[in-house]
């Protein structure tokens, strides 16, 4: 009846996951009860859960990413503590548990922190920057978000029901095959990633279509904000490589469920094929994450330097070059496979070449700041911290791209330090910059600057104290994922690294405090003009938070920095930035629970698949088809916002804006 699911799935004999797991569920339950008692549930259902508004979906994505950041960070602290303690001993984590933690840490940080935050910022900012009212497929956008949330749910469920994968953040065979991993850990991993991967693929399709087919009149390709370009490049890579991930995990699942032989190394199977396939997705994936972060830096640096971005055209070319070259470097993840010197040389050179467009970008940001009046706000601090730190991560990457050097450093702590050095200062700092930069647009008040700066300094110092030692230990021969070790040369570095993670913890505490303080004092820090940073792109041309329809009328874009030029023109001609007009009613897509229902069915089906509860799988699939038909059967898919309401909202914002634009001039 319940497949493989029995009481033994609950780890009663392992207190750490049991207590922490039930702790998490207790917190979630408490929040749900509080929401229910306060009577917020109908509001949440109406305004958020069923919402198809790209801004709301973007906020929910970011919320998911930030909550999961805490989960992934707890894993990080546990690992650092283990490696600090496990010199000449076993530490406090048994090997099987340590293995699950490093697997969960990588999986969560990439799929359920970085991806949701990147996609969340894209969702929030791209349609606003393009000057349009929503993405191409609003309902599918909601489906995407909820499928991502299902993946996160399944990964967290494995904490208490069953176990998680022990093979690292990617399930390398033959270790991940049924023979060596008979438990449900790999199945949790695969189904969680399959479901959230479908969500990501739909997002990619949605944004390629949105950016290429839906822009304000006059916004030709060379007038698009750079963040939109990077979102386009990132979405194109998603469309090109996420299907490979789906296919690869499908093959692994077939091996595990139906005794196929893709990667078993028996009956003709070939585990190295998995390495090729998974990295053909996995390497482009890091560019999916970092390109939108580059876009955020571009927006932030231009805005706070008070200058147009230096070398816009070269920035666009560099972005698209990375988009393409990102798909030609995957083999550098396994130079040691033995493909031969010719193959390794080709991929080594390609991996070095991809540093060139990235270098172009770094120079462009520096030249943008050069000669500008830089306002040192939190977002630009994150950007400067990124530039300084990321260059070192890039240099160690070029070093690892040399196959001969890679043979020494493969799977060492040096490698781990390298990719943390690119992902944390590259992606995470960019996401924090974007979070601070667009927060007032989303909620109508500015985040506290003082605590934001504290967070920045603690993070950047903490990062270097935590991962500088990784480089040294790696050069001294320390391999990654060691549950215990006996080499005295490594121990001091691991202790130092643990101190670093505590500094980062203080940084995260500062961020939590920043949010709490800012919400409490929001009345004093509200942004009435919709343009708190003296911005240059169209998202600042509407109120904060924007109305559901974003723009009462679509702007007519005549230049690259659409809103900046509108402001300049308003100042020189002393005309209002947008003249009063007759408003027209606006059609907007209706909210729908399709995304939520799909996700609920997907989580039940995923859980049933993991535990081999076949009748439930069939019910889930029938439910999915039924949802599809019910959704297709809707007669009213849009609602109309009357012209009077549009006029009321827009006129209030225009008055505030006109006063503000006259002041600084």
């Amino acid at each position, binding site marked *: 009846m319940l497949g493989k699911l029995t009481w033994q799935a609950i780890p009663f004999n392992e207190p750490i996951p049991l207590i922490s797991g039930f702790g998490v569920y207790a917190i979630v339950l408490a929040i749900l009860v509080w929401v229910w008692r306060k009577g917020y549930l109908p509001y949440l259902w109406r305004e958020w859960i069923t919402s198809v508004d790209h801004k709301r979906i973007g906020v929910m994505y970011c919320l998911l990413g930030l909550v999961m950041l805490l989960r992934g960070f707890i894993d990080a602290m546990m690992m650092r503590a283990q490696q600090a303690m496990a010199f000449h001993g076993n530490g406090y984590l048994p090997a099987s548990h340590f293995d699950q933690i490093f697997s969960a840490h990588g999986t969560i940080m990439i799929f359920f922190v970085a991806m949701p935050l990147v996609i969340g910022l894209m969702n929030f900012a791209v349609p606003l920057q393009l000057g*349009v009212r929503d993405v*191409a*497929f609003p309902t599918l956008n909601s489906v995407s978000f909820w499928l991502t949330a299902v993946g996160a749910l399944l990964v967290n469920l494995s904490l208490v029901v069953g176990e998680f994968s022990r093979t690292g953040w990617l399930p390398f065979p033959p270790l991940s095959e049924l023979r060596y991993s008979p438990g449900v850990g790999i199945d949790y991993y695969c189904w969680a990633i399959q479901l959230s991967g479908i969500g990501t*693929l739909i997002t*990619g*399709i*949605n944004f*390629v*279509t949105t950016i*290429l*087919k*839906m*822009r*304000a*009149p*006059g*916004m*030709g*390709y*060379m*007038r698009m904000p750079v963040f939109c370009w990077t979102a386009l490049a990132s979405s194109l890579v998603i*469309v*090109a*490589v*996420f*299907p*490979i991930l*789906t*296919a*690869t995990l*499908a*093959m692994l699942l*077939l*091996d595990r469920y*139906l*005794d*196929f*032989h*893709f990667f*078993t190394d*028996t*009956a*003709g*199977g*070939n585990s190295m*094929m998995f390495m090729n*396939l998974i990295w053909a997705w996995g390497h482009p994936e890091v560019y999916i994450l970092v390109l939108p972060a580059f876009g955020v830096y571009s927006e932030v640096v231009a805005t706070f330097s008070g200058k147009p971005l230096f070398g816009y055209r070269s920035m666009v070319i560099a972005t698209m070059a990375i988009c393409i070259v990102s798909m030609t470097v995957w083999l550098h993840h396994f130079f040691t496979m033995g493909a031969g010197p010719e193959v390794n040389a080709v991929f080594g050179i390609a991996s070095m070449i991809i540093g060139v467009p990235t270098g172009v970008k770094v120079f462009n940001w520096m030249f943008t700041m050069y000669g500008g009046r830089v306002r040192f706000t939190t977002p630009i601090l994150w950007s400067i911290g990124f530039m300084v730190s990321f260059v070192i991560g890039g240099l160690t990457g070029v070093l690892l791209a040399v196959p001969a050097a890679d043979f020494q450093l493969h799977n060492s702590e040096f490698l781990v330090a390298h990719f943390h050095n690119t992902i944390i200062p590259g992606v995470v700092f960019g996401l924090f910059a974007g979070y601070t930069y667009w927060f007032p647009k989303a909620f109508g008040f500015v985040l506290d600057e003082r605590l934001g700066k504290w967070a920045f300094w603690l993070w950047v110092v903490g990062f270097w104290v935590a991962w500088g030692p990784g480089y040294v230990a790696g050069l001294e021969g320390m391999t990654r994922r060691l549950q215990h070790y006996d080499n005295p040369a490594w121990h001091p570095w691991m202790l130092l690294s643990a101190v670093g993670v505590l500094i980062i913890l203080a940084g995260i505490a500062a961020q939590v405090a920043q949010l709490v303080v800012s919400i409490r004092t929001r009345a004093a820090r509200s942004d009435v003009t919709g343009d708190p940073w003296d911005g240059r792109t169209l998202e600042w041309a509407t109120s904060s938070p924007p109305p559901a329809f974003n723009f009462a009328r*679509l702007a007519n*874009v005549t230049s690259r920095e659409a809103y900046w030029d509108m402001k300049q023109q308003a100042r020189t001609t002393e005309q209002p930035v947008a003249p009063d007009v007759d408003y027209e009613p606006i059609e907007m897509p209706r909210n729908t629970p399709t995304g939520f229902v799909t996700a609920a069915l997907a989580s039940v089906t995923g859980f049933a698949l993991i535990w081999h509860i076949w009748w439930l799988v069939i019910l889930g699939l029938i439910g999915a*088809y039924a949802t*599809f*038909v019910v959704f*297709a*059967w809707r*007669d009213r*898919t849009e609602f109309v916002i009357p012209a009077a309401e549009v006029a009321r909202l827009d006129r209030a914002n225009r008055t505030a804006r006109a006063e503000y634009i006259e002041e600084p001039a």
Partner: protein
Amino acid sequence: MSTEILRAPLDPAGLPHEAALAGAPPRVTGHGAGGPAPKRIVVGYGFWVFLLSDVIMFSSFFAAYAVLFKNTAGGPSARELYDLHNTALETALLLTSTLTCGLASIAVGQRNLKWTQIALACTGVLGVAFLTLEVREFASFVARGAGPSRSAFLSSFFTLVGCHGVHVTAGVLWLGTMMAQFYAKGFRTDIRHRFLCFTLFWHALDIIWVAIFSLVYLVGTLPPELLP
């Protein structure tokens, strides 16, 4: 009604080009500066992008098949198993179903419900016949001890061809839903948009099948000395 259709040129999905309809301003500028595209363009474009991603998923399975083709682990090889007569019949059924699907597009363009339903029903019947032949072929392989667990080669064969079969099955379910929608709601704009996507999907499955037919069945039955 017919005169209106004649004035507006038809595109392959049987829908008039929107720009050709009276009153629509010219939208094509070549630099993407014409403002948001009309909904039909957005829907069709998005679905094209989805189809591209689907093709990439198939290409992964093709790659796996190519890598594992010779790894028969002492079991039967492609040449011993494949029956080109059966494949030829499958191909004929699927290609004919594409023709009837195209006829359905024309009928939708003419807003002719009867012929739309007839053409779609034919498409569905041909699709089901194709699936029947495929399932029969799979069953005969398994009966001969050549199931997917026998060797890596057979694993990749069943996955690649089976994935196409799963797509056809989904297509048949979608087709049934489309017929029901035309019956219940008529030729509403959003339903015509969906139908446009359905036809694209069905034709794309045919293209994938052409690749399977050529690269799996035709190459698989070549004499060994002709194989690389």
